[in-house]
């Protein structure tokens, strides 16, 4: 029983990262029609930003949670302005290839500079200890990760689905030309959307730093799992991306309890099954 709840908790934590990353991918895809292959590398960059801020400048965890996404988001803006914006008239696959190249560059450079082994990130003092829930022990930091990422995901959903700014965004997803004609600066909106999407990845990276080692390859395998999550959820809906992320994290956690050999592959198997039954994804629509 103890093991079951423990794995459920780990599943929820992994699910929180899947949700944050697939949410960023979905937001970017909605407006840019690009799948951001560099998402895993930028997640890693967020974690490294936090680590460097702490080790070199003594800037703590909570400031890193704010500063690292801003730095990575700014980098995203530069990437969009200098490179991605040249590709919008071409086949969408070129965006995938470009961001794949960027991922290789970022991961390769960090691998050569910091080595492939991970760097530990010291847990902030506030989060030492935990709560005894009777049936299981809940470390404070794990609780924080789940709550904080749920809040950020929920906040993003609220802004996109329920505010005026979000309505511009959704309108531009449907028909950028008409929205532009109404006097909204669509190219700037696209740039900021990409910046926001990768900032979410960096935020996830900072959250991951105290749990996992800060390593150059930490995002490489993760991003492939997140791709499968995105295929399962379908990219039509923001809420769908969030829910699918959390649920698949839990599914993965349960698999670790009942059939550990398949825990690496279960999400891919679910993807294949969903494709057979409902090719557009659980929350998707054909486009």
């Amino acid at each position, binding site marked *: 029983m103890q093991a079951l709840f423990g794995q459920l908790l780990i599943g929820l934590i992994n699910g929180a990262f899947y949700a944050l990353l697939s949410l960023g991918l979905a937001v970017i895809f909605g407006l840019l029609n690009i799948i951001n292959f560099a998402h895993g590398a930028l997640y890693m960059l967020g974690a490294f930003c936090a680590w460097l801020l702490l080790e070199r400048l003594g800037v703590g965890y909570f400031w890193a949670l704010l500063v690292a996404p801003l730095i990575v988001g700014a980098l995203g803006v530069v990437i969009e302005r200098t*490179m991605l914006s040249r590709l919008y008239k*071409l086949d969408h696959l070129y965006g995938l290839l470009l961001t794949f190249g960027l991922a290789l*560059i970022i991961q390769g450079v960090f691998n050569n500079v910091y080595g492939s082994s991970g760097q530990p990130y010291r847990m902030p003092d506030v989060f030492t200890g935990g709560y005894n829930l009777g049936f299981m022990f809940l470390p404070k930091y794990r609780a924080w990760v789940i709550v904080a990422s749920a809040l950020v995901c929920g906040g993003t959903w609220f802004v996109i689905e329920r505010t005026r700014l979000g309505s511009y965004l959704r309108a531009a997803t449907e028909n950028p030309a008409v929205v532009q004609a109404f006097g909204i600066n669509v190219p700037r909106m696209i740039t900021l959307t990409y910046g926001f999407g990768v900032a979410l990845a960096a935020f996830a990276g900072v959250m991951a730093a105290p749990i996992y080692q800060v390593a150059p390859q930490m995002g490489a395998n993760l991003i492939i799992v997140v791709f*499968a999550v995105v*295929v399962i959820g379908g990219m039509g809906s923001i809420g769908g991306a969030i829910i699918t992320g959390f649920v698949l994290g839990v599914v993965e956690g349960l698999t670790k309890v009942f059939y550990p050999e398949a825990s690496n*592959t279960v999400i*891919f198997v679910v993807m*294949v099954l969903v*494709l057979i039954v409902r*090719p557009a994804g659980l929350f998707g629509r054909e486009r």
Partner: protein
Amino acid sequence: MATPTPVAMTAAAGARRFALGFVVLAGVLALVPFAGIYPVFVMKALCFALFACAFNLLLGYGGLLSFGHAMFLGTAGYVCAHAAKAWGWPPEAAIAVGTLSAMLLGAAVGVIAIRRQGIYFAMITLAIAQMFYFFYLQTPFTHGEDGIQAVPRGRLFGLVDLTSTTAMYYTVLVIFLAGFAAIYRIVHSPFGAALNAIRENEPRAISLGYDADRYKLMAFVLSATFAGLAGATKAIVFELASLTDVHWTMSGEVVLMVLVGGMGTIFGPVVGAFVIVGIESYLSAGLTLGSVVIGPEWVTVITGVIFVACVLAFRRGIVGEWLAWRQRRRPGTPPDT
């Protein structure tokens, strides 16, 4: 084209030019063992060239970007190596069963993957390939991180001893040339023409009565089969089948080879494979530029830089740019080789 040329004439001229290029390529490659070039390097490049040609059949002519083609290369390699080592099969049978396994896998994966298009297709193939990566990591017959080592090369048809590098080289050359010619034949068959039509405008092809999904699945299976032939041959040449060949970096590498050489051109993938394999083997020894030494640890970064540069400024690739340059100089020549 400035002046309209009858289609039959264009096709005949194209076939003549291909035949000329093919003979020159075969002649040059046949002379390699006498030219003092390290034959193992050329064998490696030829295996990758066949892999890239198979990939180009799907991407360049079918318009489908698979990001998981390493699963076919790697699966065929594992099956071939296992057949040769554990079952003691002769090399021709081991390569055949390896290729067959890639073909069957291609059929199974293809049925699922062609349900979505474009970006989704790339993500699905990548995810399925990653699933097989974890499977091969855990299953006992692949020996995990070690891979299947010391695969015997054996005697081809019981006659030719492949432990001789020269015999191995000419075997690889024959396999490559046969696969290359077969892919040319497929691209320029009625099937290839229909595939081209589907890539250019799928709704129109469907309205003309073509079953687009069947053609795409067929292209996927053919591409997987030739990728498998390359992987099985590679396992015999290097006496090794390892996880490297099923990893996603390998899937990315074959995309890069086709992109560098020129997607949708017949000779492009061959050129791209030689360029990329060449760069890697130069870097593995360390390249000295003045006081800076660029070692093998920079391969990933350089691969990434080439990717970005190709996508931003060099989308036609080497052969594609050359064809476009010729087109500008002599507007009458047929556009495709």
